[in-house]
Every structure is written in structure tokens, then in C-alpha cells.
């Protein structure tokens, strides 16, 4: 249980809510006055989705460790690889989730069920 007071928690919600909204609004607001996005900026923006998504995913699949074998033999990495193949093959979010979760559960609980 936290020692945060009711007021402090509301303060966090309000401050972070306003800050997050201003971040979201930033360029959407500013670009309204500019009709043309510079080609240089466009070149950088093109890579934003792949960069951000890869940075969100990778640490969820692998945990750095001096033991390379343990690092590579991660259940999450296997399940993620299977899910990536499904995503590439079908491009379907729901199917990717189902196959990925089933792969993870098979690796986690399968050996126990067999023994």
C-alpha cells in the first residue's frame, strides 16, 4: 500500500494527463500553419513506426544475460518468433495474438503435461 495521499494521486493524474495531451497536440497543432512537410523531416518520420514498435517489442522477448544459451532459449522469444511468422503470413492481429499465446502456453505448460 502506498503512502501517497488522495490529493497527491489526483495531482499525478491531472499533471500527467495534461502533459500527455500537450505532447499529443504538439505537432498536430503546429503543422496546421505549415502546408508542406520538409522532405528531410518526412525521411525521418518514415522510420518512426518500425523503430518505436521494435523498441517496444524486443525487450519483452529477450532478457539480457551473460548466459547466451539461456538468453536465446527464452520461451517468449520462441513464441514471439512464431507470432512474427503468422503476422508476416496473414497480417492479422487477432490471429497473431492467439497463435503467440498458444505457443507461449505450450512451451510453458506442455512439458509438465507430458511428464
Amino acid at each position: 500500500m502506498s503512502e501517497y495521499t488522495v490529493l497527491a494521486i489526483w495531482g499525478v493524474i491531472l499533471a500527467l494527463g495534461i502533459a500527455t495531451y500537450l505532447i499529443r497536440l504538439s505537432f498536430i497543432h503546429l503543422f496546421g500553419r505549415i502546408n508542406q512537410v520538409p522532405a528531410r523531416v518526412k525521411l525521418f518520420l518514415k522510420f518512426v513506426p518500425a523503430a518505436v514498435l521494435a523498441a517496444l517489442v524486443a525487450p519483452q522477448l529477450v532478457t539480457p544475460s551473460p548466459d547466451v544459451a539461456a538468453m536465446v532459449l527464452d520461451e517468449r522469444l520462441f513464441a514471439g518468433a512464431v507470432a512474427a511468422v503468422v503476422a508476416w503470413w496473414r497480417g492479422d492481429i487477432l490471429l497473431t495474438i492467439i497463435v503467440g499465446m498458444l505457443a507461449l502456453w505450450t512451451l510453458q505448460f506442455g512439458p509438465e503435461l507430458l511428464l
Partner: protein
Amino acid sequence: MNGDFKAGARDSIGILLGLIPFAIVFGIAADGAGLSTLQTVAMSAVIFAGTAQLVTVELIDANAGLAIVILTGVVINLRMLMYSASIAPHFTDYGKQTRAYLAYFLTDHVYAMSIAEYTNEAKSRNKRMYYLGLGVSIWVVWVATTAIGYLLGAGIPEELNLMFAVPLVFLAILVPAIDDAPQVVTALVSGVFAIAAAFAVAEFGLPQGLDLLIAAAIGIIAGVVSEEVMG
């Protein structure tokens, strides 16, 4: 209902299946940190950013300083600057007030799905309605399932690892987005640096979220450089 709004709402279903476990986990974590029902629901409604919310309640639970909690949330959400800049050219036809409320719904998923739809020239969607179809559906379900998670408490067995659905959603969006060699370079460089940076953040107590920003920035630069090298 408007056809393009409906199309956005329909396209949000896959994302929602990944987000519902996330919202439930957030609700459970908020309960554990001692937040009230109203505070938990308000956090989802006002901040509307899962990763930042989850990290925030974890830091509140750990009694981290007020400034650190807010700063960490801001750092995690700074990636939305990139989304805002990327999607802004598609909203320039709309007035100030329309842009002001559209901005409110700009999340990872709404951004990724909308950009994919806008750049698909075969589909001539009403950009605002498609975006709102996605954004409003995700917002409503996000807020509602947060409340359900809070009320469920810790009833769901942790061994099921339902949180794993979250990276699976990102993966399902990422893979089809990689359509040329420089994009492959970006994804690989960004992914490798994200793992290294996540390790560094945990090891040296750097602000959570900084790893994501650094890795993405390096990945983008790698993509731009490889595009110029490959022509």
C-alpha cells in the same frame, strides 16, 4: 453510423483483444497500489496511455517521489511527439478545434493503424472518421476494462502471462510495416538497442522509458543512413 467510423471501430477489435488483458492488469495493479475506483478509472480516461499508467501506479506503489513519477510518465509518453509529427500532415485540412480533440485519441495503436490506412492509396477513407472509429472504441473499452480489472482484483492466475498479448499486438503491427531493406535495418537496430538500453536502465537506475526513446532514435538514424547509402 458513418461507414468510415464503422471501419475504424471494426479494425480496433484485434487491438482490443490485445489491450483488454493490459487494461485488466493495470486495474489490478492500481488496486494493489491503493488507488480508489474513481482514481483508477480517471487515470485511464484522462491519461489514456497504458505503459505510462502501469509504470505510474508501480512507482506510486513504491513511494517514488512525486516529481519522479510525473517526469517518468512524461518521458515514456514523449514518443507521442513522433506520432504527432507523423500524423499531423494528414490533419492539416481540419480546423483548430477538430485537431484539438483528434489529438486526445493519439495512442500507439490509433497512430499505427491510421497511418497504415492513410498510406494505403487503394482506400480513400474519411481520415477523421476512421481515426475516431478507432480512437473512441479503444478509449471506451480501455476505460471500461480498467474498471473490470480493478474490481476483479487479483483473481486471474499470473502463470497465464496474459500481459504477453501486449508485445504480440505490437509485433502484429510491426511486421507488415517493414516493407523494404532500410525498414529492416531500423527494426533490427532499434530492437537490439532497446534490449541493451533496457538492461542499462535497470542496471544504472536511469529513468524508465529513456531506453525506448534512445533505441528508437538510433533505429531511425540507422534507417535514414541506410536509405541514403542504398539510394
